[in-house]
C-alpha cells in the first residue's frame, strides 16, 4: 500500500470513528422527528456561560421531594444509575414527560437519557449561541420560550432551535 493510499485509509478510518462517536446525535438530527417542549434558562440571573446556555425543561424534569438535585432534568433517586427513558405525551401543543423508566418503552416518542452522573442528562441540556445573539435570546428565555428537538426512533435527541412559543 503506497503512502497516499495509507494516509487516505487513516483519514477515512478516523473520520468513521468520529461518526461512530456522535452517531446518536447525528441520527437524531438527520432522521429524527420534530418535537416542541417548553424551555427555560437554568439560572435566570446569568444563564450564559461562554457561548452556550444551559437549558432547563420544566415539563421534562423529574421532581422528587427527597432529591437534592434542583436543576436541569432532576434525578430519579431509585437507588440505581444508568440508562433511563422519558416517555413523552403532547399537552397543549408542547410535549411533556409522562413516565420515567429504566426499561426502553415499546413505542411512542421517548428520550433516551442517562443518570450515571449526579443528574439526568439527555443530550439536550445546552444550546450554542453566537455572542451577538446572546443578549436577545436571554430576554427571550426569561419571557418563556420553546425548544425544538429532533428525536429519532431510539430516543436520541438534539436541540435544533430555541424560539418564542
Amino acid at each position, binding site marked *: *500500500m503506497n*503512502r497516499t493510499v*495509507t*494516509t487516505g*485509509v*487513516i*483519514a477515512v*478510518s*478516523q*473520520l468513521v*470513528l*468520529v461518526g*461512530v*462517536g*456522535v452517531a*446518536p*446525535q*447525528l441520527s437524531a*438530527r438527520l432522521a429524527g422527528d420534530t418535537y416542541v417542549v417548553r424551555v427555560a434558562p437554568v439560572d435566570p440571573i446569568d444563564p450564559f456561560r*461562554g*457561548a452556550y446556555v444551559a437549558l432547563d425543561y420544566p415539563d421534562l424534569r423529574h421532581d422528587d421531594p427527597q432529591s437534592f438535585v434542583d436543576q436541569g432534568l432532576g434525578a430519579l433517586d431509585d437507588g440505581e444509575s*444508568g440508562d433511563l427513558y422519558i416517555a413523552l405525551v403532547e399537552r397543549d401543543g408542547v410535549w411533556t414527560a409522562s413516565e420515567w423508566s429504566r426499561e426502553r418503552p415499546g413505542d411512542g416518542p421517548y428520550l433516551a437519557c*442517562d443518570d*450515571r*452522573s449526579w443528574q439526568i*442528562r439527555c*443530550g*439536550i*441540556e*445546552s444550546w*450554542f449561541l*453566537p*455572542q451577538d445573539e446572546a443578549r436577545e435570546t436571554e430576554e427571550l428565555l426569561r419571557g418563556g420560550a420553546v425548544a425544538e428537538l429532533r428525536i429519532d426512533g431510539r430516543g436520541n435527541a*438534539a*436541540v435544533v432551535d430555541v424560539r418564542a412559543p
Partner: protein
Amino acid sequence: MSTPGSSLATRPVTPRQLDWLRTEIADWTSQGIITEDQAGRISTRLSARYPAEHHARTSIGRVFLHLGAGFVGVGLIWLVAANLDQLSPVTRFAAVAALWLAFLVGGEVLASRHASAPLVGAVRLLAALGAGAVVFQAAQSLQVPAYEPRLVGLWAAGALVHAYLTRAYLPFLVGVLAGVVWWFMQPMWDSSNGLTVVLLMGAASVLAAGLAVLHDGRIDAFAWTWRTVAGGMALLAVFVAAVPDIGGDGIVWSAWLVGALVSAGVVAAAAALTRPGPTALEPLGAVVVLVVATLLGLWTTGTDATDVDAGDWAHAAVSVLAYVALAVALVALGTVRDHPPLTWMAMTGLVVFTTFQSFAVFAPIVTGAWLFVVLGTVFLGTGFLFDRARRELASALDPDAGPSPESGPDLPKGTDR
C-alpha cells in the same frame, strides 16, 4: 565482505556506547584476546566511523526540531482554542478537523521525503493528538457528553490505526495510553467495584503480554511498549488485590468485563500457540498473576487496623510473597529481554507495596518494622542468588541475547519514525 564505500560510512552512536566499546577493547587487550596493534587499528576505525560529535549534533538538532514542532503545534491549537467562542459549532469542528488533516498529511509527506525522524515524529504526534481533538470537538458540537468513555476508546482506536498502518511509534503511544484509560473507564462506567478493577488490571496484563510476544521480531518498539504495559498492569493488579477487603462486594459481572477477559484470553492463547517455548511463559505468567490477584481479592479479612488476627497476618504474608515473586519474575524478564523499565518498575513497586502493607494495612509501627527486616533479608538473599544466576538465566531463556551496554540509536525493527 565490506565494500570501500561501506567502510567509509559513518553510523551515529551515543558517547556511552563508545566509552563502553573502548573499555571492552582495553580489557580484550589486557587479556591477550587482541594485540596492541589490533586495538590501535580498531580505535582509529572507531574514531573515523563512529564520531561521538556527530551524535551530539544530531541530539541537539533532534531536541530543537521536537521543541519547534511542539511549539508550533501547540501555538496553532492555542490560536484556535482562544478564538473558539467566536465560531459556530460547525466551524469549530471544521477548524479542528482541518488542523488534524494538515498534521496527518504533513507527517506522511515529510516521511515520504525522508525528512528528519524527530520532525516526522513530532508532526505524527500532533496528528494523533489531533484525532482526539476531532472526536471531542465533534462530540461537543453535537452536544454528546464529553465524559463518555466510548469517545476515549474511539480516539485510541483511531490512533492505533494510524500507528499500525505507518508503523509510527508516537501515534502508537497515544493509542496505547488512551486505550488503557478506556479499558478501565468503559467497564467502570456501568459498575465499579474493587474486584472489577483487579480483574481489569489482570486482564490488561494478559492482553499486553500476549501482544508483546506476538509483536516480537515484527515490530520491536511496539513489543517493548506492550511488555512495559503488561509488567505495570501485573504489578498494579497484585497491589490492588492485596488491599484488605478490596473484594468484599464480590465480582460484579458486566458484558464489558467478560469481553475484556475473553479478548485477553484469546490473545494469550494466540501468543502461546504461535510462539511456543520459553517466550510463551510471558502471557502464561500474566494469566497466573490474574488468577492469583483475583483469589487474593476474593480473600476478605478484617479492615480494622487495631485488631490484627491470624487471618490478617496470613493475608498480608501471602500478598507479600506473591508480590515479591512477581517482582523477581519481572526483574528476570527485564534482564533477559534487556528491558530496564521492567526492572525499575518491579523494584519501585516492591518498595511502595512494602511500605503500604507496613504502614497503611497494619497500624502498629513495630509490626511494620519487622516486616521490613524480614523482607530486607529476603531481598539480600534474592539479590545474591539472582546476581549469580542472571547470566545463566539469560542464556537459557534467550540464547541469542548477547551482552549489550544499551540499545543503539537505530530505529527498532519494523518501526518507522
